[in-house]
Each structure stands twice: as C-alpha cells, then as structure tokens.
C-alpha cells in the first residue's frame, strides 16, 4: 500500500482544480479504501482552505463597495421615479 504522503500532490491538484478526470477518479477510489484516508484528505483540505484563495486589497474592497452603492442608488432612483 502506498504511503499517504504519496497522495499529497494528487490531493492538492484536485483542490487546486487542475487534476484530470483519471486523477480525480484515483483520489475518489483511494478515499473509499480506508476511512482514515478520508480523514487525511480532510486535514489537508482544511490546511488548503485556510491558506488559499484571493485576498482583496483595501482599494479593491472600497472600489467594489462603490459599485455596490451605485447599484443600490440606481434601484432607489427607479423606485422614486416608478
């Protein structure tokens, strides 16, 4: 049986969304073979979730907030006119 650490790269590929169908299938099969494999997967998934994903700059947040306010005001205007 393969060591769990051999699966790290495969797990991260699936989490990153760059795995092929065959690789995804391989991971699904591996997780089914032993409940501890799924526990291992979930731990790595948590580490990945805690440390991945975009973090917007303050400027970006303010810019997007501006867009949101524009939307709200456009709705209100429509309401007043309607």
């Amino acid at each position, binding site marked *: 049986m393969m060591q769990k650490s051999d699966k*790290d790269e495969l797990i991260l590929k699936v989490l990153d969304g760059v795995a092929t169908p065959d690789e995804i299938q391989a991971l699904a099969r591996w997780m089914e073979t032993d409940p501890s494999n799924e526990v291992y997967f979930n731990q790595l998934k948590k580490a*990945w979730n805690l*440390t*991945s*994903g*975009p973090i917007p700059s303050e400027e970006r947040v303010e810019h997007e*907030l501006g867009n*949101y306010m524009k939307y709200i005001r456009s709705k209100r205007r429509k309401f007043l006119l309607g």
Partner: protein
Amino acid sequence: MDGNSEQLITELREGREKAFTQVFRMYYGPLLNYAGRILKDVELANDVVQECFCRLYERRKEIKRGFQVRPYLYRSVYNSCMDAIKHQKVENNYINQELLDFYFSKVVETPEAEQALLDEDLKGAIQAAINKLPERCREIFVLSKVDGLSNKQIAEQLNISMKTVEAQMTTAFVRLRKELGWLLCFIFIQNF
C-alpha cells in the same frame, strides 16, 4: 463587530445605505476568498459575491427579526458558485455523475464548514506555521497565496521553472498540514 444586532437587521430591512455598507465591509473579503477557492477565478468570484450582496438588497423587505446575515450570505454565495461551476470547467473535468457527486460532496467546502473554520480564528496559528517554512518555500507560498500570483507569474518573477514552483507549493501545504496537524485534528473532531 456584531453582524446580527437587532438594530442592524432593522436598518437593512429599511434599506439604509449605512447598514449595507457595514455588511459589505465586514463580509466582502472573506466571501471573495471563499468563492475564489471554489471557482478558481477571482473576477468570476467577484461577480458572484456582488450579485449576492445585490440580492440581499433586493430582498431586504423579506428580512425578519432574528435574520442572520453571515449564514445567509455564505449560503447564497455557495449556491451561486454551484450554479456557476455546474456550467463550466467542472463539467469537463468531472465527466460522469459519480465524479461530480464526489466533487460536490467531498471537495467543495460547504458554507457550514467554512464558517466553522472562521470561528476557530486560526489566523495566528497559520501565520506562525507559514513563518516556519523554509525560506524559498515561504517566499513562493506568500507570492502565491498573499499576493495572488499565478504559478506562471511566480516562475517568471523568480526566474525558476513552473515545476519548481509547483513542487515548492506542495511542500508548503504538506508542511503546513503537519505543523497545523494537531489543530486541524481538533477542528475535525469538533465539526463532525
């Protein structure tokens, strides 16, 4: 800051700009991060999150006492992300129903699990774990996860191969998992 105070809920129902601004500032960043991880596309994630905030405004009159902003927004973003990926790349990569089921049940982070992670407030522990990474590994990890560079951009900036970047990222995650292991084990037990 409390996102569920009775006053805030009332102001949301009344359509006060101040209340919607407060909610946006509180949740836009974490929701973008969450949607970005599911969709692997920042601009698409931004569209999804903006739409969810717009829907909150549209449906403000339905807001009742005891309404909880955060669970509503996370569920809303999750549902929109599911709609978006069912129509795009996942379909190509997860050709059969079995793989799709696997993806949605095991790979995609549910809004409940995501909020449980946020409540654990692990930022300090994560930062400490990142600081313990070997220097080169940490540099690449930070460029990727904090500065949001793609592997290709990192390879170009540091003048190294894509393979090296990928290998270093794998090392980073594996070491983080080990470092955070006891912590993650603990969360795992709590959540399930």
